[in-house]
């Protein structure tokens, strides 16, 4: 146990506080602040920023159940109950939005979850530290390119007449597809570019897990005559499972979080039927058309579903695999 007070006088009392760190009563509280006021001062700005910029908007969620009133601001006017939720569920947009959001985010979630694992297993097989390092470093470079530039690159590369990728695919015999306009191309283009950009970055954590595998296991497997593929299957892959579970839980918390920025930037009048998702709709309804209460309700619906999925996945993981976030 460490003693933390600068003045080394009241040692005995301090030790007692260490044994029972809860602070009961006013005297205990005063003692706590006398001892730790500096830590409170250090934490205070962060607490204040998060309180204002994260918790005050949460308080403003009540707007979803109230009529927006310009003079009342954040907390809204009259209570209207579930009016705006009902309006959303009954709107002709609802099923389209839900379908688009689920298709885009679930595809991204599945492909974006599997790809980094495959890449990590692959890179781990490369012999030689420097080659491995180079491959790893090269693959996560795109992670730092901004979304605007990524979408800009997609537009020039996929441009119907002169785009680099369009021409390449024509060479392979794939012709007549307008990758930027056809509704069937939107999800593949979105997901593949997503994997291209983030796969390398997301594999770092798996490579770290692989680096910590006990080398004796490999030696033992080789002596038993295991080939490289079966080593991957029986030693490397199981070593990744705990990391996989944690990341899966975290990803499930964003199950309806189809990335706003990229989808918004990729939208055009031709693909809007498959590219309008909840977050872009909230932006258009709320910010662009000022239907604040309605947009807040839709946003809350989205957040609540995400949160529900996070909790459910966490519970399942806790029971099945004994791994959980909390």
């Amino acid at each position, binding site marked *: 146990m460490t003693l933390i007070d600068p003045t*080394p006088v009241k040692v005995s009392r301090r030790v007692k506080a260490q044994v029972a760190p809860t602070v009961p009563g006013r005297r205990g509280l005063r003692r706590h602040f006398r001892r730790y006021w500096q830590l409170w001062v250090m934490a205070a700005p962060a607490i204040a920023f*998060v309180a204002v910029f994260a918790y005050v908007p949460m308080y403003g969620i009540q707007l979803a159940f109230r009529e927006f009133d310009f003079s009342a601001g954040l907390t809204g006017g009259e209570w209207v109950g579930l009016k705006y939720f009902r309006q959303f569920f009954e709107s002709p947009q609802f099923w389209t939005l839900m379908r688009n959001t689920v298709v885009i985010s679930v595809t991204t979630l599945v492909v974006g979850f599997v790809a980094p694992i495959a890449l990590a297993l692959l890179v781990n097989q490369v012999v030689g530290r420097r080659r491995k390092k180079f491959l790893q470093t090269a693959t996560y470079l795109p992670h730092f390119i901004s979304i605007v530039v990524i979408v800009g690159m997609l537009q020039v590369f996929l441009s119907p007449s002169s785009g680099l990728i369009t021409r390449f695919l024509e060479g392979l015999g794939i012709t007549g597809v307008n990758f930027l306009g056809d509704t069937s191309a939107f999800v593949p283009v979105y997901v593949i570019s997503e994997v291209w950009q983030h796969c390398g970055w997301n594999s770092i954590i798996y490579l770290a897990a692989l680096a910590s595998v006990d080398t004796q296991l490999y030696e033992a497997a080789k002596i038993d005559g295991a080939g490289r593929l079966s080593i991957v299957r029986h030693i490397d892959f199981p070593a990744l499972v705990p990391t996989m579970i944690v990341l899966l839980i975290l990803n499930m918390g964003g199950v309806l979080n189809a990335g706003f920025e990229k989808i918004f*930037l990729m939208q055009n009048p031709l693909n809007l039927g498959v590219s309008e998702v909840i977050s872009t709709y909230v932006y258009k309804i709320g910010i662009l058309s000022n239907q604040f209460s309605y947009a807040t309700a839709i946003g809350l619906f989205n957040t609540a579903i995400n949160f529900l999925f996070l909790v459910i996945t966490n519970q399942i993981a806790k029971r099945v695999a004994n791994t959980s976030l909390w």
Partner: protein
Amino acid sequence: MRLATLRHRSPGEIAFTVVLGLTCALILFITLYPVYFVVIASVSDPTLVATGGVSFWPRGWSWFGYDQIFADTRIWTGYRNTLIYTAAGTALNLLVTLPAAYALSRREFAPRKVLMLFFAFTMFFSGGLIPTYLLYRDLSLLDNWAVFVLPSAVNVYNLIIARAFFEHSLPEEIFEAATIDGANYFQFFLKIAVPLSMAIISVIGLYYLVQHWNDFFTGLVFVRTYDKQPLQIVLRDILISNQAFAGGAGGAGGTGGSYAQQYADQIKYGVIVVSTLPVIILYPFLQKYFEKGVMIGSVKG
């Protein structure tokens, strides 16, 4: 030597090595070639680029795109704004995040569990866009340059990384020794913890820096005045909305059609290079820090 060992391998082993090598080469190509192509296309003859005449090295040098870019004030205004927002934002980020992370790393600080919950909860639940927008309006942050700096002061993920580093990488003995010498928390943090933690400070500093540099959302939703817009918004207008350039529509001399498109594309390639260059140039020097952040973050959230 490598050939010698190859001879002793089974056919299956050799096949594995060959497939592995080819796959890795393919992955490298897919990752790096698009980036490389943008660079060579930005200095090549636009007609050759459009017809597939440019593949591995620049052909028919043309500086048209860069001439246009350097003459365009929007990009440089955006660049200046982004530099200011990034510098101010990252400075505030570090000033707020590091002391808090340190406080939360002290095991004897009993409220830290509750405080961690307070922070971590915001990673999974939020008020949503509209309440946030209305809050900014009430705080007069709309169309105000401070909106690029203040709301993003704390990134909880970075806070957790920094806390994990302080907790696991600073030897407790140093703290005990300093305490005996009469150092208080402030002194210990400033004189010992910070100098010993330059690795993690670089990591989260870089994370914050990239976050500000690439921030597009804030400008889109909360800022109207074009003079205040960051680089990413300007990029959007040029790259995606195909907005006319200073030198005329798409920069082409009135010939129109695909000819104009070629020149517009060359400007786009140039704009991508100019806007992404800082990150790409710094990349080889910084990449070891980036990785370190992921490793530390994965220790335990």
